């Protein structure tokens, strides 16, 4: 259980996290979703006491992180793959980390096996690929067998097999009743892994709901109709609460009317239909809609003129 209350972090003039309040519950995978610079990583660093909140507070299982007598058994965190001395071997890194809590080499070997690092455990971390670094970070997070896991972009740099493994591992750990918080800016990944999503935009919590709700609430369901008599069909469907946009001469996107109604209207007026499809909004669309105004770094679309 992670509880944040009005959590705020300012760096000079810039507000990285702005009065964020949320609760991460056990037994579920909770996703922290947001564009780059939205405050996800800063929030995670504050949870494990690396950054001091400007105001507000965050507690893990009812206590501040620093108050726990065995922090590694309480919380395991992968903040970034680079939190490891590059001159040390993976085995020695884990051994030194575990030693603080009296965790010995048997457990170190266990997490090395678990993350598939047996072949490189004796090698210096500096030569690791991004994916191996992530695996080592996950091994370090699991070292103390913690009740709560915090993972910042855990699938970054992993191969497809690794991605599947992380997904399975997180679901399994959540099923054991642990609290899992992971961040990502990949909405598709969240849709696959998370049960509950907290959306961050410019440091604020802009949505906090189960995955299904986020998809339903943010996205509009529309019907795509294709017909040689599209113009006539559009005229027949026109109503105050119906929105019709025309993608091309013969294709319409209709919102506010069901596919069944449109089919009925077409049949009773003898109009030919080539396509009639209900389009449900994806998590991706919902997310873009939610964060449209909250993106810190806007990109400009590159027009052909610019390219030339």
């Amino acid at each position, binding site marked *: 259980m992670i509880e944040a209350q009005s959590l705020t972090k300012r760096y000079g003039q810039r507000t990285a996290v702005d009065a964020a309040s949320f609760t991460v519950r056990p037994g579920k995978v909770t996703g922290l979703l947001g564009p780059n610079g939205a405050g996800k990583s800063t929030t995670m660093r504050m949870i494990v006491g690396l950054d001091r909140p400007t105001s507000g507070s965050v507690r893990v299982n009812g206590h501040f992180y620093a108050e726990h007598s065995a922090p590694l058994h309480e919380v395991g965190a992968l903040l970034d793959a680079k939190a*490891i001395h590059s*001159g*040390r071997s993976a085995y*020695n890194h884990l051994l*030194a980390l575990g030693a*603080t809590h009296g965790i*010995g080499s048997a457990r170190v070997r266990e997490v090395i*096996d678990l993350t*598939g690092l047996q072949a490189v455990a004796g090698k210096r971390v500096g030569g690791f690929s991004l994916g191996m670094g992530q695996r080592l970070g996950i091994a370090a997070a699991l070292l103390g067998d913690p009740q709560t896991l915090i993972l910042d972009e855990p699938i970054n740099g992993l191969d497809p097999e690794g991605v599947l493994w992380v997904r399975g591992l997180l679901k399994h750990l959540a099923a054991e009743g642990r609290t899992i918080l992971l961040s990502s800016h990949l909405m598709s990944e969240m849709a696959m892994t998370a049960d509950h999503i907290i959306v961050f935009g410019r440091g604020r919590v802009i949505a906090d709901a189960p995955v299904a709700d986020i998809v339903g609430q943010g996205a509009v369901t529309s019907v795509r109709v294709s017909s040689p008599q599209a113009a006539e069909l559009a005229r027949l469907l026109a109503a105050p609460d119906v929105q019709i946009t025309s993608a091309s001469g013969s294709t319409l996107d209709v919102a506010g009317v069901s596919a069944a109604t449109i089919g009925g209207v077409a049949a009773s007026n003898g109009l030919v239909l080539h396509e009639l499809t209900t389009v449900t909004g994806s998590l991706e669309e919902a997310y873009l809609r939610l964060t449209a105004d909250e993106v810190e770094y806007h990109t400009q679309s590159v027009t052909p003129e610019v390219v030339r």
Partner: protein
Amino acid sequence: MSTLAQPALARSSHIDASSRGLSATGILRSEWIKLRSLRSTWWSFGIIVAIQIGMAVLFSLTATDRFGEISGAQATDAAVSVTSVGLIFGQLVIAVLGVLVISGEYATGQIRSSFMAVPSRLPVLAAKAIVFSIATFVVTLVSIVVAYFVTMPILAGAGVQANPFDGTLWLHFIGAATFLVMIGLISLGIGATLRSTPGGIAASLGLLLVAPTILVVIPAAWANTLAGWTPSSAGQGLYYWGGTFEPWQALLVMLGWVAVFIATAAVLMKRRDA
């Protein structure tokens, strides 16, 4: 990488109830594993041993005419000056290592792992200082003692009869090892304050080499006095007796320097975001 264990293994079978929780001995052991598992440690200590013994042999071979037929306290002083001549270079090596021990953690991001394991932070600095001090003390003392026994026959051949059973001889040696420990701790404090390897090494060598040189050049009595108080100068009083400071005064001056830098580092470490 193709066979991954089943997630079920995440539930540990190797953490027993007795090993739960942070402890001082655990943090010390952790810092010892960290120190011995880096190549820079072995390189630095290796260089210290080589310099200490090599310089002593060189010095004893070239300086035999200088001493003449001496024994007793004079011979002890001669043996000390021969075996401690390498410390002038050894202090630079230990200064670099002292900075690296902590700045390496900041440069690589390791410090975040260290602070997540020990969120109160200061025990990490304390354990680092203790482990690094003990290692430096042992390595320096052993290399000086070896240097003494290697150069003893050479000096004896030139008429210097240094008695290994002279208690003050060993006090000198302990003072020499303490000197490098103090230099190492000052550098550790500088490294933890600046959190950067190049910056820390520059500041540390600046304090040891540049500061006394500049102060000596300034034509004023206060500048010369101050030059005598810099760590590299005052610290010599720990092993080369009869200078400006008595050994115990030299120790107090060095402890003062250590206190200033370690205390600054501790306050900032506690306060700053990692």
